């Protein structure tokens, strides 16, 4: 059904305004302010063109934090996809309707607790007196606690994957629901094995869901701090922790510059991903 243009405009104006006011406008302000100068007399910024914020990124190893944040986000998103893809496959293709609901609920329930509690609970699992070290010692596999299980990059990745796994799994389930079962049955009738069906049919047809899942986890990891602060080693950092540090000393241009760099990378990734993997296909009408 085609709506008249005036009706469509009326319906779209409120959400469009909300997106501009709550999404785009603050981002635009952050980008503009990143080029302003810090004013020590007011502890605020003044409208004078300055690249000091961007220069600051190159000092004190801040750029390495940005790079390592992207690396952590990439690794977390990749691991989430590796776990999320078979999970989504099991939920959609293998489980009965009732079991699928149970599995989805199991994935969702942890999100009813605070992210702080979820991260904190990993300290109790991975710590020196935690569940894993206790089990390993009781089984005689180790004689002393393994220290690197907690307060390490390993622990951070575990915490991030556990936090964001559903954000990779749900888009994959959505993408798999769009697959035509007839096409899969036809491939099998023609002799394609399990892996051939996965490689030549399911993966290519769900690639938009794969990218959506990757993007969700990637972006959320970029904005996370709790997992790093609670599970990382001494002074472990990530972009949001670094921005907090900088804000504490009121260096706003630097904080805005760091945010702008991250925003630019994320926008670039979305545009490239959409071109390469057809992200928008995920929202197209199936009929």
């Amino acid at each position: 059904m085609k709506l008249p243009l005036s009706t469509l405009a009326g319906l779209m104006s409120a959400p469009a305004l909300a997106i501009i006011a709550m999404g785009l406008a603050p981002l635009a302000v952050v980008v503009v302010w990143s080029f302003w100068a810090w004013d020590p007399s007011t502890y605020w910024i003044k409208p004078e063109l300055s690249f000091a914020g961007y220069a600051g990124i190159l000092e004190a190893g801040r750029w390495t934090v940005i790079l390592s944040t992207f690396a952590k986000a990439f690794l977390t998103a990749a691991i989430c996809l590796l776990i999320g893809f078979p999970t989504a496959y099991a939920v959609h293709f293998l489980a009965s309707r009732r079991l699928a609901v149970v599995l989805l609920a199991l994935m969702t329930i942890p999100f009813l607790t605070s992210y702080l509690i979820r991260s904190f609970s990993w300290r109790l699992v991975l710590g020196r007196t935690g569940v894993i070290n206790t089990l390993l010692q009781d089984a005689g596999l180790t004689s002393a606690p393994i220290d690197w299980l907690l307060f390490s990059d390993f622990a951070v990745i575990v915490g991030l994957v556990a936090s964001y796994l559903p954000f990779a799994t749900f888009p994959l389930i959505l993408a798999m629901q769009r697959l035509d079962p007839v096409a899969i049955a036809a491939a099998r009738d023609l002799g394609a094995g399990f892996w051939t069906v996965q490689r030549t049919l399911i993966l290519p047809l769900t690639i938009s869901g794969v990218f959506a899942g990757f993007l969700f986890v990637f972006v959320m990891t970029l904005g996370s701090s709790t997992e790093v602060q609670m599970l990382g080693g001494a002074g472990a950092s990530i972009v949001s922790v670094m921005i907090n540090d900088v804000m504490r000393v009121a260096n706003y241009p630097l904080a805005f510059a760091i945010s702008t760099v991250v925003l630019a990378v994320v926008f670039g990734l979305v545009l490239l991903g959409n071109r390469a993997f057809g992200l928008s296909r995920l929202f197209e009408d199936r009929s």
Partner: protein
Amino acid sequence: MTVGNRNIPISSNMQRRDLLKFMGAGAAAITVGGLPRVAFAQDKTVAFWATATLDIGEKWQEFASQAGVTPEFTDNGNDVGPVVARLAAGNANDLFDVGGLQGGAEKELARQGLIIPWDIAKIPNYEGVWQWAKDIPYLKHEGKQFGIPTVVNADSIIYRPDKLGKVDSYGVIFDPKLKGRVAMEDAWINSAVFAAMYLKESENQPIKEPGNLSESELGLVMEFLIKHKKDGQFRTFWNGWEQGVQLVANEEVDAMTGWEPIVYEGRKRGLQVEYAAPVEGYEGWGNNTVLLKGAGDRGTADAAHEFVNGLLAGFYGCELGKARGYLVPTDSNVAYAQAHPSEYAPEEVQKLGDHVKAKFGGKVYWQNCRPDNFQLYEEWWQKLRNA
């Protein structure tokens, strides 16, 4: 102009302030999902913008009936950076009359004219404040009183005597034999001071004031921390109360610099934990109340003085001590408890006061949330993180 049908005249300044408050309330509701406190029925109100730990919640009502002035409390988030920025470039001076800040920012705020001096003559209870608290270095600027010490304490080392025996030096934190078994706080505001105190007192390094390091002193201190971090000395840098408690309770560390209440919590959980009295001294900290310029502009400065006088009158000290174990540095607390033994146990109030006093009997270096080189501290802290 009149309000409703009550025919109460209000000034245009009040209209603006109320409008800003209303807008602030909306912003607070959006950002934190809550609403600011509603004023109690009193004629005089003071907008108190302070660290959340200074809030006594529903007990403000009783405070108001005793002090004759009603505080409207708003949490300032505790981070001094955003607080100073909001005072300098935001609307904080339009909204609030009195601020409660970690000590150190007074000089900067006074220099910018964002806070105005207190008139001690209008705060009779200031007389009862302990002398060493009056001597906190950040309270005065150019001879004028800009800060009133409201809460004070001193921090050192939490340790396990069953593992380490008696600890009396910050050297334990940097002892290679305890590699991976110690921690410090993830904040230069404390950790740089502790390291500087150790280097100054036990290593005879040329450091004048651990709370306000010069560029070269800061380099010395931070290189020292970086070296130890690279050597794997620290298990982690901790953040916040629960994380601090968990490190001790789950035996992740044998010693760490931190807050004394963590010791009490560890003991509650059945652990043998002690708080050290280091030879290098304690790190003192204070949360001081400041009179915001806006209060002077609006003519609420007198009410602000009455409010601060109330903070030092005893009830607030008893309540804060009971609720959080924090100390208002005055004998009024004990006097109030003695006059109201059914509400507050005088011996407990006395004990808390004596305990904190004893800490300040020895060497103390003050925490400073705004050292002269504060931006350099952040830069070095990033280097430490990335080392």
